[in-house]
């Protein structure tokens, strides 16, 4: 398979107007990625799948990464596709697409029409990160239950207090955690305090 820069040039020529950057992985991993803009990710994917030079007919892994806003750059949710070619036995070719973190604007085009294998994994990304995949045949929650409202894998997600909380021997550990401002989310702390008051 060609070098990543070459692939980028080819893709840019093939898909008119596609804005593609190259994102590097860790120095050791050597898996540079193509960061494609939201409008053209489908076109680029289609091209890579059908072009005889690549034949990326096998989409192995789909997932999302949540980047919190930093001082210098705004936060974003990044959807990552790992493409391989069963026909030519090469890969991986990593496609990345970014969407803003706000729930209402967090939409990217679905690649399920290209690779059926994305179906469940995109559903999972939607379930855990709240990424809406436009064009996905049935975008429902898959791991969390349907009544669940939040997106638990987001970095700013605060788990609710465990409503099934019952007194356990590690209460003192929890107390210590509270006193040292440790591991517990604030809501859980209030819950814990209430329970303690109730017990006394």
């Amino acid at each position, binding site marked *: 398979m060609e070098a990543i820069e070459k692939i980028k040039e080819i893709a840019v020529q093939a898909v008119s107007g596609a804005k593609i950057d190259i994102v590097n992985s*860790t*120095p050791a991993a050597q898996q540079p990625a193509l960061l494609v803009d939201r409008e053209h990710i489908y076109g680029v994917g289609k091209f890579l799948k059908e072009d005889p030079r690549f034949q990326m007919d096998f989409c192995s892994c789909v997932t999302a990464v949540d980047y919190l806003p930093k001082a210098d750059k705004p936060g974003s949710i990044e959807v990552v596709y790992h493409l391989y070619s069963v026909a030519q*036995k090469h890969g*991986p070719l990593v496609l990345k697409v970014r969407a803003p973190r706000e729930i209402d604007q967090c939409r990217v085009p679905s690649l*399920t029409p290209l690779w059926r*294998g994305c179906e*469940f994994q995109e559903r999972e990304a939607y379930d855990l990160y709240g990424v809406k995949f436009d064009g996905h045949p049935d975008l429902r929650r898959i791991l969390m239950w349907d009544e669940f409202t939040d997106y638990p894998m987001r970095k700013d997600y605060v788990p609710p207090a465990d409503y099934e909380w019952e007194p356990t021997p590690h209460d003192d550990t929890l107390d210590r955690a509270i006193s040292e401002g440790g591991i517990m989310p604030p809501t859980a702390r209030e819950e814990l305090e209430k329970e303690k008051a109730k017990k006394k």
Partner: protein
Amino acid sequence: MIQPLTEEKGYTLTPGSEGLIETQTLEVSIGPQHPSTHGVFRMDCTLDGETVIALKPVMGYLHRNHEQLAERMVWLGSMPYTDRLDYFNSMTNNWAYALAVEKLTGIKVPERADYIRVIMSELTRLLNHTCVIGFMLQDLGAWGTPLLYAFRERERILDLFEAVSGSRMMCNYMRFGGVRVNMTEDDLAVAKDIVTRYPRFLDEFEKLLTSNEVLLMRTQRVGILPKELAINASITGPMARASGVEYDVRKVDNYGVYGRFDFRIPVGDVGDVYDRYYIRVLEMRESIKILQQALRDIPQGPYIAPEVKLRNFKIPPGDGYGRIEAPKGELGFYLVADETGKQPYRYHVRPPSFVNLTTLEDMCLGLKVADVVIILGSIDIVLGEVDR
């Protein structure tokens, strides 16, 4: 693309009011508590008599957000948790995670460690495939006999795992850059004994099953998965190879020391349940060949890279994806390290049995309830891995 339910197999509902008898469909929810859903898995079936005309897999009953747990822990801390993903094959899970981390950091694994990993994961493949066939026959209604033969053999392998790693199923054996405990000569002798004993068991097993007319009737031309769909739906492992996809990560990536072994990849042509059954048998025979070679020329030497620190282990910022050929298919870990590098910033598991479930409905439409059960059995899922 998902085909509309009834068109794909040209299935039409038995005539309603205009026909002789007024018929209506029956909504049956198979699972989450059902003898043959292999855990807490649910299939919302719409039946016309005994025939399935719609099927929706429902999962998540075992969801514990493994990925978030890992993101709150140091890199090593989630190694014991990977045991709980596919609790049948903790060794291969360990290897997949260790391999991903080594990909990100460029740690060189000592040769002996690689050989030990190959031995362990091929033994895992043996016990997984044996037990899967046993479970499938259980779904076929053979009153536990093949399953218990499978468990009898699995017992020996688990004893070896306990002797080496200290635990039978939750091995927690691999470490970044090697394995935790060396394999003594006695352990290798035990492994050799298992390998010499296994073909005999396989022959007996096949004599009981392979040419059994009832099994043939039940499994052939049932749950056919065409090759194109298999590739497009990212089906991996024995399931894909049964559909004729010539793809095995062991051959494609040559991770570990697999490049040095001489073994073949069996491929089926029809892609039905019988193929999935028999491809597994053939893969076990190939695994035995690999094990014989690995046990023959395993070198002496260190079993873990000495420069790797156990505590305060750091990874340079960036991401990477490492995958291996687990017994159920391609098991991959996608890891992202941030500036601090102490913990995973993103830790994603690409579980084979979760993705392999994608085409469950396509395979089941138009068949009977009994077929649904064995098709699910032939996919070989473990819910700890599907739900994570």
